[in-house]
């Protein structure tokens, strides 16, 4: 198991590295000059050049790359090109908002999605199943931002229960909750749709397996059949798909953050994009990717734990 863990971890590192390089290169090729953004259109050419020099933008790309790499290895994400603040601070401030949102999304999705998936699988081809499938398909088809907008329109604008935008801070938990509700609901509903479908198909696959029929033939109660045999064996494909869903979750959280103007990583990324803040953009991309790589790693490890055969591939 340890060898397996190390193997998977080692693969994760080059992935991160490649992503960093791609991000770095892509962002540098992009048009727009952060020094000009900082000084505005009334500034003199000399002032712009001076700032470029200060930002290190006039050095050749590969030197900038090496600097970035060196700093990253020391855990320093550098300073924002737009306001000179250390990015790590901003990252740490934004992270909790994204985390609480994605957490709500996952939990909501799991709590409502798994039972629904199981239920519709068991009641296959009945009306309940039909409705469940249409609903979850509907959920999948709903663009995340549109669902957010509709919920915002209904429960924050037309009927002003919840605040429209913003996030509240962690010192006032009630306020935080109010700001989290609609975004969390949006993401949660989308994730529920995904989880339902996935659970349903996993369960269906297993329902036809011999050992289930055997268990039933043995006369075990329905409940026992479900919980003991079904779920335990469905766990494997579910685990495998968590990796994919983490990606959907992150993408979804970015859209939700933009719609509801929550100060999380997604908003940080789009803001950095608009201001041509190369360093911040890079830092956010790396953070996102680290999450994905981490989740994939955990998924791989869980996979290895559950199914020993995988370890020896």
């Amino acid at each position, binding site marked *: 198991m340890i060898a397996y863990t190390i193997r998977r971890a080692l693969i994760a590192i080059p992935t991160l590295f490649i992503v960093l390089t791609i991000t770095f290169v892509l962002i540098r090729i992009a*048009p727009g000059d952060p020094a000009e953004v900082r000084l505005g259109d*009334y500034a003199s050419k000399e002032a712009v050049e001076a700032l470029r020099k200060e930002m290190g933008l006039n050095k050749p790309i590969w030197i900038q790359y090496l600097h970035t790499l060196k700093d990253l290895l020391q855990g320093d994400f550098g300073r924002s090109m737009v306001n000179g603040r250390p990015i790590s601070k901003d990252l740490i401030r934004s992270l909790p908002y994204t985390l609480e949102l994605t957490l709500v999304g996952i939990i909501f999705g799991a709590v409502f999605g798994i039972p629904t998936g199981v239920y519709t699988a068991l009641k296959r081809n009945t009306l309940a199943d039909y409705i469940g499938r249409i609903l979850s398909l509907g959920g999948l088809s709903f663009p995340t931002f549109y669902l957010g907008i509709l919920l915002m329109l209904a429960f924050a604008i037309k009927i002003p229960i919840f605040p429209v935008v913003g996030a509240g801070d962690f010192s006032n938990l009630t306020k935080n909750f109010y700001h989290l*509700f609609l975004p969390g609901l949006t993401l949660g509903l989308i994730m529920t749709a995904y989880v339902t479908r996935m659970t349903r198909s996993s369960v269906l696959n297993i329902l036809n397996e011999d050992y289930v029929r055997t268990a039933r033939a043995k006369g075990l109660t329905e409940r026992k059949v479900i919980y003991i045999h079904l779920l335990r064996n469905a766990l494997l494909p579910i685990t495998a798909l968590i990796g994919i869903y983490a990606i959907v979750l992150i993408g979804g959280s970015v859209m939700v953050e933009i719609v509801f103007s929550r100060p999380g990583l997604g908003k940080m990324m789009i803001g950095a994009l*608009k201001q*041509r803040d190369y360093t911040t953009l890079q830092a956010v991309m790396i953070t996102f990717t680290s999450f994905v790589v981490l989740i994939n790693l955990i998924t791989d490890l869980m996979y290895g734990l559950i199914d020993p055969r995988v370890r020896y591939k």
Partner: protein
Amino acid sequence: MKGIKMAFITVLVVGVFLFLGAPWALGADREVLRISFDAGDILDLHPHFAHTTQDRGVVHLIFTGLVRYKAGDIGKFEPDLAERWEVSKDGLTWTFHLRRGVMVHPWKDNPGYELTSEDVVYSFKSAADPKRSAWAAEYAGMTFEPVDKYTVRFTLQKPISELLFLPKVADYAGGLIIPKKPAEELGEGFRTHPVGTGPFIFNKYLPKEKIVTVRHEKFYRGVPKLAGVEVFFMSDLSSRKFGLQNKELDVIEGPPSQPWVEEMQALPGVKVNVFGPGESGVLHFNMTKKPFDDIRVRRAIAYALSRDEVATAIGKAIAEAVYSEIPNPQPGWITRDELVQRGKKDKKDYLYAPDRKKVKKLLTEAGFPKGFTTEISLTERGEYQVPMQNVVAQLRESGINVKLNVVDHATYHSNIRKDMNTIVLYNCWRPTADVRLTHFGHSSSIVVTGKKPITNFSHVGAVDADGDGKVDNVDSLIESARDMLDAKEQLAHWKEIQFKLLDWCIAYPVFIKRFTFARQDYVDWGYDLKSTLILSPQINELTRTTK
């Protein structure tokens, strides 16, 4: 069934609780004015660099100048840090006498100190240094020296009128005074921890969230009525609106948009301020790129456009048509009637009122009977998008297709300065008519190829504008107007220059759009807000909340 019933009741109870609890949970504060700008964060709080609305908004809480524009009225100057001033007979020496007892804000461990001429001289030397100021050009050729503790002398190389000199020492841009001790001590840190002499003291900066300032008890014009000002960054329009509705904000910046103004005015307890001077929008034609080198094409575009429609697209409450390069209400501007009168006298058309027949005739003469296509880059920002989208739609009716290549704001400014566009829409306000005419009409300001490129996008002064084979140039007119000391003569000269530019149709002035801010009705600015240079309502020692 039982489970479902329980669930239903729970949901009902929770729903009621949420509904009732909402306003209580979201709370409200008083005594401290909370204002929000359309921005994600500040860029730079150093007054000699700050140029965005939000940066200027913060900077003007913290700094003041020798002279100030009267609060709410940029047409008048008043003494501020300086009690009085004189200018020598030859116009080359200006002497300012400082007020006594002006206390610099406390910072870090320093409790503050009295401002003297040493600080003022330091500030102007810094403002004149291109490495430490974005407006160094304003002070080129000037020297500054302290005469005694409370007297400062400015020495110029050429005399200029008071109209052109006072803006340089007013509470705006380079004229804002940065005290020597904190500036030197904080160095780069000054950009995010400004220390000045204004009514409010910088307290803290929470990146991407807000700036907190507190009352300066020793402010020389009087103790401010507000306990402090908090400046929030919210680049999302809805955020700001609902912040206002929930009474979490007292003042918010608005877009130059009529529907928004109407929406705000309909809210209970909310008032909207639309104020000037605003920024004028002018379409500049690049005469070095075909087919804009042909005066008939340029005039065709002018005749194809209805200024009124563009202004309406922005919003009648906010924008109106302008007919000259110098916009209303800047000294030197030309009214519609004046244009028509003068046009009759000269037998020329300076107005270019919409006329489809003339468009067709001119285009056909120029060789484009069916119209033509051109491609330009444009910034994504709303205040450019809204008028330009309308201009494009209008031109389309005449067969002129303008393809828009939308880029981010910084790239747009970079592109147009690289002479890439055939048509350039530029929104701005310039402190004086001289600055504007120089920037947009003098040959040395021509982008890329000029001696000192600024924003002369049309290349006027270096090309043949009217097709008579000779280069058309207003350089000497601009320069002589600048040196005039008699105000009436100066104004007349400036108008002459504009008539020429209109005749050559190097640019088409379209609109002036004012600024929009919404506030709670309990916010009282303390003065009559008609116009302000800093793009947002000034919050000073007289501003207060009446509850």
